[in-house]
């Protein structure tokens, strides 16, 4: 396609020839992960440069992040706690993005999921002393229903009025936060504080530390049952996307909507359906975060999980199983990044990683060859 071979006025010749052409054959299997890994490494280097320019200490920041996220079993367990909501929102973004449906609203759907789970305990939908397994199932269900409802609105607007879903899902995020705030401050406020009462213990999701009585090794580990939800959801989503007819329809609409239409696939129905599934997954993330970590209904429950989910899905190439791995990486970044100064560093690193990733796709789509320039 393009040729960069230069000959300067002085007669000196650039000794190499860089040739860029569109890839016609299928790229080798190892290329994609290698490129992603390279992109992450390059991103960390660029991030270090920016931190240094901003007057920070890049090496100290990075070693801090590594040590306080993966350094021991205890912090590794905390990393998993952060990774659980990320897996679910990452999956939410993956299925929507696979259809080229840009759901940027996982954050709001997460908030509504948290609201749904809280309804079960605070309304209450289940009696105070209901058995634990009922709470596990019903809070998850309500989180998913409320998240799906929040996803339905932009999905319906897109299908019916062709409203751009990027803007509408994003606006729904801001609306969700205010919606929750009304209930946190106005309805369920505990003696004027900006939070509800602490949920009763039998409503909490089980944690690894609950097993400590029998196996002392698990003592103090906070990883909760949400991990089971997340891994199950990843496997189911992978099966749907790569093995089922519906998954094929979603992929076809994403790759070639016109062909899908000719094949008799209803695009409008799938827009609404996929937005709802995506919302349900993000809602499940919110509900498991409330029931497994926060244990009360309050604000500021997400350091931008919904937005990080976008990057996670992209880094995983929208593959649900790969989402599990990339979520752990970003869980580590968010966990240990909390104490790194200045406070914007985790956001910055996420941004650089994403830019590097997208740029690296160029090498996936094109073949770049560098050869020695032949003497004339």
């Amino acid at each position, binding site marked *: 396609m393009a040729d960069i071979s230069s000959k300067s006025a002085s007669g000196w010749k650039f000794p190499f020839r860089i040739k860029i052409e569109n890839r016609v054959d299928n790229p080798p299997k190892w290329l994609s992960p290698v490129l992603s890994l390279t992109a992450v490494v390059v991103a960390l280097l660029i991030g270090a440069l*920016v*931190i240094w320019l*901003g007057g*920070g200490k890049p090496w100290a920041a990075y070693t801090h992040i590594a040590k306080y996220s993966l350094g021991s079993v205890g912090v590794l367990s905390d990393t998993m706690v952060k990774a659980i909501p990320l897996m679910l929102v990452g999956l939410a973004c993956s299925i929507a993005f696979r259809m080229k449906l*840009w759901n*940027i609203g996982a954050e709001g759907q997460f908030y509504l999921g948290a609201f749904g789970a809280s309804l079960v305990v605070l309304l209450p939908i289940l009696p105070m002393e209901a058995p634990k397994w009922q709470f596990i199932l019903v809070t998850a269900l309500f989180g998913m229903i409320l998240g799906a409802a929040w996803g339905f609105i932009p999905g319906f*607007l897109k299908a019916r*009025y*062709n*409203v*751009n879903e*990027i*803007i*509408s899902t*994003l*606006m*729904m995020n*801001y*609306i969700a936060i*205010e*919606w929750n*705030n*009304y209930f946190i*401050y*106005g*309805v369920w406020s505990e003696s004027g504080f900006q939070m509800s009462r602490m949920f009763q213990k039998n409503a909490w999701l089980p944690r690894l530390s609950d097993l400590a009585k029998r196996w002392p090794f698990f003592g103090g580990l906070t990883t909760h049952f949400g991990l089971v939800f997340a891994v199950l959801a990843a496997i189911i989503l992978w099966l749907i996307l790569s093995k089922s007819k519906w998954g094929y329809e979603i992929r076809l609409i994403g790759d070639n909507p016109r062909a899908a239409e000719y094949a008799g696939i209803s695009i409008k129905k799938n827009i609404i359906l996929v937005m709802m599934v995506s919302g349900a997954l993000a809602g499940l993330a919110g509900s498991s975060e409330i029931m497994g970590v926060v244990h009360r209904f309050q604000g500021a429950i997400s350091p931008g999980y919904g*937005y990080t989910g*976008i*990057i996670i899905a*992209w880094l995983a190439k929208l593959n649900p199983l790969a989402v599990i791995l990339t979520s752990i990486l970003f869980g580590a970044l968010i966990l240990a990044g909390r104490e790194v*100064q*200045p*406070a*914007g*560093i*985790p*956001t*910055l*690193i*996420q*941004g*650089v990683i*994403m*830019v590097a*990733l*997208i*740029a690296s*796709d*160029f090498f996936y*789509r094109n073949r770049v060859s560098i050869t020695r320039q032949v003497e004339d």
Partner: protein
Amino acid sequence: MNFILILASGVATGTVLLYATVGEIFSERSGILNLGVEGMMLIGAMSAYKTAAATGNAWLGLLVAMLAAGLISQIHAFITITLQADQVISGLALNFLATGISLVLGEGLTSLRDVVPHLPKFSIPGLTQIPWLGGIFFYNQSIMVYIGFLFIPLAWYFINRTRPGMHLRAVGEYPAAADTLGIRVYLLRYLYVFVGGLLAGLAGATISLSISPGWFGGLTTAGQGWIAIGLVIFAQWNPVRAAFGGFTFGALRRLVLDLQGPATILGLANPFYYNVNYGFFLKMLPYIFTVVFLVIGSREANRKRIGSPAALGLPYIRGQRGL
């Protein structure tokens, strides 16, 4: 409630949206969707504030803000124009990156509130005497508001009535045809993404140095960049409609804030006064309005058969079939 005051501050708030929206119109008219407006505005707000704090010169702050946001927009330009990557995902990435950079470099700026100079505010003598309109548009407004008034017709004239404006539209509607006429598609797209960046930076600086001065991290813009992208669709890529949308929207935003003040509205008890918590529903309104504006814009576009620029979102690859 003083409606003139509300509308006047609506015009001020709307000016921010106006700059950001017209900036995005330039970019989209050339065929490049840039979702990084919110991040670029933050870069603008932060660098304007930081420069003004360091030098004591608000105008220098404005200039640096525009250049900084313009510069960062070129990352998106490079990725989408030269590397031909997906514009949606690249714009989102730019947003993360720009937000992160402004948070890191903006560390500690919040405490400088009292030392940072603002851009001047003044009334325009004579015009303030016009009944109603004078008080709304010309009384004690920021200079950025007046510049905005001049900017709207200029932007409209440039896009619709000049030769470079025609080239801009050609590049966004049918780049292959533009290319055969010798119009430099790639160069123009880079240029107008840059213009979009400049204007987003200007919008950010208008917030932090004039309309609601200060640096409050991500809350400085509070989603206005996204609202601006929504307004582009409502405005149907037309700067005059963007101004109308921006000012209406600014007034609505303002009205929402002021509704909690009085005990009675038009003789009826004001529920927002008696239960503070209903205020959360008021705060939702700007975002609900945005969605409503989107629905109106999309329906009208369907009816009048006006669409987005035909090549919007598509990379131009010389020599390949298609647009």
